[in-house]
Every structure is written in structure tokens, then in C-alpha cells.
């Protein structure tokens, strides 16, 4: 187990390094990084100063070293516009994104899991077909398109929900739905297939042979095991949601990190953009690693396998 964990940790570390290298490389790839790293509106003298300050005339590997050193210290640069540390800015917006992701995740699980279970139990029934359509649409429709339709319907025509912004339960419903639909479909599929697998397993066959009522078999024995992969995927997806919510957050003016990225783009506030991408990617790497650890703990096969 230790070896496995070490290997996963190593992999995660390599991913983080590669992430930083990629971001670093791209910034310097495109002509004059000084332009990006300076406030839009800087004079040529300012550019010279910035070059000195960031050591842009020093060899690349030296620059990279100092880049990483800053990151390790938690220094992701300062926002041009807000004049505060970008890390602080990011962390102050993260809760809003997490809230949105949590509600979207709740929605996707509440819809996805029961539907998947029923679809598995009553394969090819009416419910299964309806579920399939729901899933198909969820997987194909872009989330911001869904968001716009929701606004049109529930805000403009019906006037039930506020069209954008934040501040109350009503504000989070539409963006969460728009964000969560895709994942509801994904969770539904996984639940269904996972359930089918478990229902066909020896363990369940034995329970049935023992004469236990079907409902108990499903609820107590099958579900528990079927849900493990689903919940794991959900954990990974939660972090993914935070990152892919850019457009949904923009459509609904939801003040999360996705919107922060959008603001950074429109205001040409490059430190914000760079930090959001770095932190977003890092979160995903970390969560994947944690999931691997979780699996190692739960699933004995892995512990002794490697």
C-alpha cells in the first residue's frame, strides 16, 4: 500500500510540475511576456521596470525557478486592478463557486442516483427511456445554453426566479441546474451500469437465494457497493465543476472563481487569469490524488496488488 501511495503521490507531484511548466512556457512563448505581466496602460518605462523586476532577461530556467519559488510561498502575483494578492482574491471567491458546485452536485446526485437505480432495476421500462433522453440531452447541450433557456423561461416569462446575481436560495437554483445537468446524466449512467454489475454478482445472487426480499437486496446489499464508484466520481466531478463553471457563472453573474477568470480576461488582468488556471489545475490534481488514496483505503485489492 505504501508503495502504491508513494507512486500516486509521485505522479501527482509530476503533474503539478508539468502544470506549472506548461503555464510558464505559454506565457513566455508568445512574444513579450512583459506586456502580459504589466498593467494594461503601462508606459514603455514601466515595461522596462517590469522586465527587471521579473528578471525577464535572465535565462529561462532561472526564471522558472523563481516562478516556482513564488508559487511555493503562495505568491501568485497581484491583481492589476484590485491591487491585492491574487491568491486572496481567488480564495475569497472560491466559497461561492463551491456553493454552486455543491448545489449542482446535490441536484445531480438526487436526480442521477435514484433514476439510475430504477433504470437498472426496471431495464428498458418507461422510466429507463425517459432517463435515456434526459441523459442524452444533458450530455450534449452546452451548459450555458441551458442556463439562457432557464432564464428565458423562469425569469422572463414566468418571473419566478431572479435572472442573475446571488444572495438567496432562489439565485442559485438555475445556475446549479444548468451546471448540474451534464453531471446528473453522467452519474445516472454510472449508477445504472454499476448497479447492473452488482446485481449480477455472486454476492447478490447469494442474498436472493437466501430468500431475502428483493427490496432489501437492492437497498442494503447492492446499492452500497454500486454507489462506491459513483460517489468517487462525484468527488472528482465536484472539483471539475468549479473549473468548468466559467460560462455558467458568467451567464448568471455568479460571483465565483469562474466569473473571476472572466473578469480577468475582460480587464486584461493577467495575474488573475494565470492564477485561476494554475489553482484550478492544481485542485484537480490534488483531488485525483486524494481519490486514489481513498481507493487504496477502501479497496483491499489495490493495497496488495501493486
Amino acid at each position, binding site marked *: 500500500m505504501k508503495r502504491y501511495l508513494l507512486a500516486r503521490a509521485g505522479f501527482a507531484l509530476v503533474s503539478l510540475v508539468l502544470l506549472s511548466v506548461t503555464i510558464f512556457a505559454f506565457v513566455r512563448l508568445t512574444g513579450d511576456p512583459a506586456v502580459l505581466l504589466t*498593467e*494594461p*496602460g*503601462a*508606459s*514603455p518605462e514601466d515595461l522596462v521596470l517590469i522586465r527587471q523586476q521579473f528578471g525577464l532577461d535572465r535565462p529561462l530556467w532561472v526564471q522558472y525557478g523563481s516562478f516556482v519559488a513564488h508559487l511555493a510561498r503562495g505568491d501568485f502575483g497581484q*491583481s*492589476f*486592478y*484590485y*491591487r*491585492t494578492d491574487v491568491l486572496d*482574491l481567488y480564495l*475569497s*471567491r472560491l466559497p461561492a463557486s463551491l456553493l454552486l458546485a455543491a448545489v449542482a452536485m446535490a441536484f445531480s446526485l438526487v436526480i442521477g442516483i435514484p433514476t439510475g437505480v430504477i433504470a437498472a432495476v426496471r431495464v428498458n421500462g418507461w422510466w429507463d427511456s425517459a432517463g435515456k433522453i434526459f441523459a442524452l440531452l444533458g450530455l450534449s447541450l452546452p451548459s450555458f445554453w441551458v442556463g439562457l433557456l432557464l432564464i428565458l423561461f423562469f*425569469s422572463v416569462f414566468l418571473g419566478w426566479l*431572479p*435572472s*442573475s*446575481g446571488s*444572495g*438567496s*436560495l*432562489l*439565485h442559485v437554483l438555475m445556475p446549479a441546474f444548468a451546471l448540474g445537468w451534464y453531471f446528473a446524466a453522467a452519474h445516472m449512467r454510472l449508477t445504472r451500469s454499476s448497479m447492473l454489475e452488482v446485481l449480477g454478482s455472486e454476492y447478490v445472487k447469494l442474498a436472493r437465494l437466501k430468500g431475502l426480499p428483493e427490496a432489501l437486496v437492492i437497498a442494503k446489499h447492492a446499492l452500497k457497493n454500486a454507489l462506491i464508484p459513483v460517489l468517487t466520481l462525484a468527488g472528482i466531478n465536484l472539483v471539475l465543476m468549479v473549473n468548468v463553471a466559467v460560462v455558467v457563472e458568467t451567464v448568471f*453573474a455568479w*460571483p465565483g472563481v469562474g466569473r*473571476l477568470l472572466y*473578469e480577468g480576461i*475582460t*480587464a*486584461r488582468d493577467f495575474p488573475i487569469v494565470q492564477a485561476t488556471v494554475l489553482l484550478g489545475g492544481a485542485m484537480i490534481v490534488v483531488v485525483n490524488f486524494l481519490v486514489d488514496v481513498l481507493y487504496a483505503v477502501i479497496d483491499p485489492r489495490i493495497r496488495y496488488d501493486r
Partner: protein
Amino acid sequence: MRHRGLLPVLLVLLSAALLPAALAPRASAAPEGQLTWAVHVSLAPTWFDPAEAPGIITPYMIYYALHDALAKPMPGQAMAPGLAESWSVSKDGRVYEFVLRNGIKFHNGEPVTAEDVKFSLERYKGAASKTLKERVAGVDTPDARRVRVRLKQPWPDFLTFYTSATGAGWIVPKKYVEKVGDEGFKKAPIGAGPYRFVSFKPGVELVLEAFEGYWRRAPQVKRLVFRVIPDEATRLAALKRGEVDVAYSIRGELAEELQRTPGLTLVPAVIQAPFWMYFADQWDPKSPWHDRRVRLAANYALDRKAINQALTLGHSKLTGSIIPSTFQFYWQPPTYAYDPPRAKKLLAEAGYPNGFDAGEYFSDTAYANLGEAAVDYLRKAGIRAQLRPLERAAFFSGFKEKKFKNLIQGASGAFGNAATRIEAFVASGGTYVYGAYPDIDGLFSEQAAELDQKKREALLQKIQQLVHEKAIFAPLWELAFLNGVGPRVGQSGLGLIAGHAYSAPYEDVTLKGK
């Protein structure tokens, strides 16, 4: 059986009754004595410090709340006494003396003294600071209530510069600033204005509380909240739902929607912000814009009336000048009619019967809607330009650094007078000037030295006439800033100060029924 059925029903009824309360948007349960604004730009901490005034009107939204000046524009007066109760000029025009009011204090209780005034002037580094520094010889403080500013030469526009065109006349507390430093000051600013700083969440909201010791009067609303909502539709949505009481900058189709909504009022404010098209290439003999007829053609190609109707519901003021009509020394030029055939004819005469590729049209992203409409009309006339919106800071810097070519959508809402605008946008050496004409320059240096107001006015008017004749610009309009006001507001403060886009003075703002 029946009894068991009642309880659930009661529970359901109870939750149904409580549900609306639980779901009600938090902000509409606003406590008495608070007004909330939905602001269209993200508030930058540099705007808490008048020393960094960038020469645009936006930060004045905050200056009028947090700070006070020796003199500033007020309702009905372009230069009303503020912290200074009076001022005088020496006979040779070189020394200005200001007398401060008695008993004026900063938010921290410290008195406002001549030292603070001197400090504020000397630390000023914002727009036009160079001009100020060049012309001011020194500042004396003969006693705690008197300040003497000595100029190197007589400078008739000094008061305009000092009190409105720059932030140097807005007074900050010397001891406090020296103690916490410039950055510290931006985190917790202290001023002498009607409201004091409570909290600021960058990109989210600014909260201010009434400063009852304000000399003019105690404010009537206890708390002011400025919420940053850059998205126009969201601003309107917030206003509709009562989450905010005033929403800045609602335009076009959303303004029409606002008008249709009962309970909301559209309050336009024509501000001292003319918009115009600048032909940056006109001094380049190889450019089509070098030919005056082409510039005239562009002017005739635009249907300003239609654009006005579409974007600002007709409230903007069409103009033929780049100088605000409310400014001192303003000369009124004739406006251009919408005349596409004439435009085509002029282009043909100039040698472009099929139009030409006009390159890029640079504009500020906030006013890209105007640029879009203008470019559309130009294209219809055959002048094929491509819209290039840039974020405000990048736009103004590119404009300043002469990085742009072809067409630029210039605009300015800064305070001042005709001379300050001509200096910035027309005369050689000006901040945003890409080329100059010697006759205009000659007249401009003449008027700068002229002490006689009448003669000066004549010179400045002649300059404006030349500008019009040469078709240096294609003026568009004086922007009407459209704001939405909700039902809770009594006096919104909008439109009280001539040419000012935002609510001011804040001490006069009230809730309905109070």
C-alpha cells in the same frame, strides 16, 4: 384516523406560510436607513485616494462620499465653497489665498488644517499633476486656517485645475496618511466627507456610514452600500427585485424594459462627456483621412439621431463639438445632418467612389455599443472599419501612448473648461493629440497668456471654430447617463450637480417619506 391526518396538514400549512419568508431575497429586508447602489464598474482601491485621480469622472462617485474639497461643483454652482469658506487672488494673479472653515473635522476626529491642504497638494500625482507642479511655486500655511498657493506665473485656470480638473484640492489627513502610508490609506481611507469608510470587499461591495460631524449637514441615510454588478442585465434584475435601490448605466433595450416596469424610474443625466470620432491619421498625407472631404463624409454618414434613440432612448444631447456645452468658453458649432448621399458624393470627389478600407476603430469596451453602431453606419457609406474594443485602462493608455491609428472613439467626462479640453485633445503636445495645426497652436498659446477674460474667450472660440472647419473630429453626442431608480428612494441625488453622472451630494440623498 382523522386526528392523525390533521397534524401533517398543519405542518404543511405552517411550512407553506414560512416558506416565502425563508425564500425572500435577503437584501429586500434592508434595514431602514440604508440605500444600495448597483455600480457598473468594479471599484478600484486607487479611487479611495484623491491623490491618484485619473482624470475621469468615475472615482468622483467615491470622492463625493468619502472626501471633501476646498471647493467643488455643487448643485447650481460650478465652484462652490467646500472646506474653504472663501478665497481670494492677489493683484498680480500669482497668489491664491484660501480660508478654511471653522470646526471642520476628518472622520477620525482630527481637525482639518492648512497643513493637510498643503500636504494634499504636494502629494498629488494624478491627472494633470505635471501641469500643477510646473506652475505652482510653493504653498504656505501662515496659520492653521489659511493656505497660500504661490504660482510662478499668473494662471487664470488655476482654480479650475485645483478645484475640479485635478484631485489636488480634495483634502486628506496628513498625520494619518504619514502613519499608515499610501497603501494603508487605500485599505482604510479617512477623509472629511459626509460618509466614512466601513468596509470594502474588492469586486463585491463598498460600505459607508454617515459621518454626522460633516460641516454642511448631517447625512440623512445612515448606510450607503455600493454593490459591484458589472453585468447590465443583472443590475436591472437586482433593481427590479428590490435588491438595490439605484442602478447605474442601464442602456438600450434594457432601458426600454426599465421604463416598462412599474415602480422603477429611468433618470437620465446628460453629463459633461462628449463622445467623438478622432481621425488619427489625418496628418498622414498618404491616408485617405488627410483629405478634409473624407472626414466630412464620415460626419455625414452617421445617423446620430437614430443611434441616440437606440442606445440612450433619445436622451443624449447631439453636438457638433468635443467640448461639453456647459463648460466655460464653449462655442456652439452647427451639428451635422444625416446625409448619406452627400457622404457618398464627398467620398467620390476625394477619389474613393467605392469607399476604402479604413482600418480599425478603437473604443472603450463600455461604449463598444456606440462604436458598433457608428462602424455600422460608416460601413454602409463604404468606409470599412473594424471595431476594436479595449478595456478602459488599456484603451486610455493606448490612446495616450499614441499606439492607435485610423479611428479612435474619444470621450472625456473630466471637469474643466474649454481650454483644458483643447489642451488635452487639440493643441500640440496635448495628452491625446496625434497631430496639430499651427494656426490653432498659435491661438492657443496666445490665450494661455491672456489675462483679460473677454479676449481669452474670443480666442478660445476662434480655436473651436477652426476645429469645426477643419473637421478634426466627428463629434457624436454628449452622453446621457441612464440610471434606474427604485421605489424606496426619495431624493436619489441624480442630476443635482450639472454634468455629474452619479448621485451627489450624498448628504442630500434621502429615502422616500423621510
